[in-house]
């Protein structure tokens, strides 16, 4: 589904990614771990197409298309979803309207008619129930005045509504208490299907108790330096990132 080959990227002339290689197949859950400042968020931004990040070499192929040629919104319409570490507040725009707009734009891209209001509302109800979300949440303005946990739940709710092929969750566990973490993880697990894939970016092993990855990568100094099964996360937790340093 996603193939990243020898990716180099920089911001403001500073090189952050120094030759990333990654292969994610449909049906898989990947975890990318690593200490702060090693390029985890940069990798997610480059995949999602954030302006200001310059790809100096390498390629990203997503479902056979060269992702680097597409705009941010085109990538989203192709099925990329980024769950933000720090979701942005949009006062005055309710989650309902925001999502309906997003869904309809994605449908327009695919040549489909706008979603009928009835179907949209039914879908919202279903996903809210699935994620154990409060009813009121969706009438509120996007992230405005939300607690850290509510913001992250809202990210997962958007993911559930947009049904992406590839979801990248950037530090979704940061700042969450155990209950919120459980809800977020349950959501991710319930949304898992043979035809989609998830990349979880995390600093700690904690989230991986709830979302069990098929593949674990360690990103260090702009490169993936180690790849293994779920046991790699445990080993990393036990031995710390110093252990990785000594290995390279």
């Amino acid at each position: 589904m996603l193939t990243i080959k020898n990716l180099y990227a920089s911001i403001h002339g500073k090189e952050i990614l120094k030759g990333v290689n990654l292969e994610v197949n449909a049906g898989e859950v990947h975890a990318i771990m690593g200490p702060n400042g090693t390029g985890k968020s940069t990798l997610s931004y480059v995949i999602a197409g954030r302006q200001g990040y310059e790809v100096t070499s390498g390629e990203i192929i997503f479902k056979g298309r060269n992702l680097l040629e597409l705009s941010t919104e085109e990538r989203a319409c192709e099925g990329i979803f980024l769950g933000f570490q720090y979701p942005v507040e949009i006062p005055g725009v309710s989650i309902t309207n925001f999502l309906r707009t997003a869904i309809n734009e994605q449908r327009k891209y695919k040549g489909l008619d706008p979603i009928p209001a009835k179907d949209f509302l039914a879908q919202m109800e279903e996903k809210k129930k699935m994620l154990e979300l409060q009813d009121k949440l969706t009438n509120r303005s996007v992230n405005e005045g939300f607690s850290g946990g509510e913001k992250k739940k809202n990210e997962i709710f958007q993911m559930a509504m947009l049904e992406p092929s590839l979801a990248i969750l950037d530090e979704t566990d940061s700042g969450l208490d155990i209950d919120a973490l459980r809800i977020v993880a349950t959501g991710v697990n319930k949304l898992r299907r043979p035809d989609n894939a998830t990349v979880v970016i995390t600093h700690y092993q904690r989230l991986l108790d709830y979302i069990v990855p098929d593949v674990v990568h360690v990103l260090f100094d702009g490169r993936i330096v180690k790849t293994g099964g779920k046991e790699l996360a445990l080993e990393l937790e036990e031995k710390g990132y110093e252990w990785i340093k000594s290995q390279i």
Partner: protein
Amino acid sequence: MRDLSLETNLKSALEALFHERNETFYASDIPFVAKARQEAFSNFIRLGFPNPRLENWRGTDLSKALDTTYEFLVEAPGDEIDVEKIFQCEVPHFETFLVAQLNGWYVYRQSPLTELANGVIIGSLAAAFEKYPELVSKHYGKYASTEKEGLIALNTAFAQDGIFIYVPDNVTVPDVVQMVNIVDSEQNLMLQARNLVILGNNSHLKLVQCDDSINHRYTFINSVSEFYIGKDSSVDHYKLQNKDEHSTLINSLFFQMESGSNLSSNSISLNGGIIRNNTDVKLAGENSSANIYGVYLMDRNQHVDNHVRIDHLVPKCQSNELFKGILDDHASGVFNGHVIVHKDAQQTNAFQTNKNILLTDKATIDTKPFLEIYADDVKCSHGATVGQLDADAMFYIRSRGISEENARILLMYAFAAEVVNKITIPELRQRIDDMVKKRLRGELSICDQCVLHCSSQEKKLTFDIDVTRI
């Protein structure tokens, strides 16, 4: 300087007109009107038209607007005008008590004053001069000083009619009163509209002022409204401006507030050649509170200027200013919020905020939040921001599949929403909300009739915003 000579020319024309009128129409003025008129005229001769060299007019240049030949309508229009024909309000479920001015004159000439069962009087100011001289003379010209502002002096010198509203003690006016100022003329017009609103004690009024033009001639509207808000009374005031490019609109509001009174005034400027909003508030009784809001969305070569002056004269009052604007193309804006906390006005709370988004590097805003404090036990703050659309928010919205253009509209809408949400009349809020959306989508031009009369397809909209329909 050329502009000065122009001002002088127009000024001398007005001077000649005044002397001519003085012999005829003004000769029959009742004494307090005559006194105000004569004083105002000599003040106008002394002050003339404002120019950008004056501190209060820095950033707003009227010279081009004054370099136009205007007709000065001195006669009332014909006997009866069918308001229904020229004006229809189509805001769904918006029941209002409608009073209209046509070219500065009260429209319903046959019944110039309506006295309602609850004691409320609504109608022509000219008629009120005659019928209620004691009541009117207590307030007329008392708050809009002609000493320092040439345009206030000009208005008072020439004003003959406008809207008069009186609400006695202990009355809550059930309907929203809608004051519509219609300009319909084959000629370029200069108007001096004058309104007076008086509330007794413990009374409540909701008022919507709409400015409209029908024929797209050059107009120079110099409107002055005085409000007296008695003890424990409240006024909820809205001012909607959706004029064409040829219009210059000077809208001056004066609020005199007694103890325990509340004011909320919201200026919504969507279109216009030059718009100048002066809002002057005197907090003259303890525990009174004024919220002054404004939102402006300007593009092309439009210019908007919001001047607010709030005097905290006594202790324990609150004032709060929130103005937000988006300027596109070559549009320019001025914000000047001047709060004066006088010596004895202890325990004052005064807050000012002005936030702007400039969409191009040609658009400009000159913002000056300004506090002048002579008391020591006060809580005051002021702040201004000028920026572009937030890059993080743009990325967030686009990452959901929403196009760059729609993401921009969504963010602009979100920016304006803070002020629009302050509107407490639900039907009006919905309507303004629709208008803001239309404006941001570039669909809102001048409606043929009222600023509220849009042939709205969005009435069926179930959702607040759906930018996919753009």
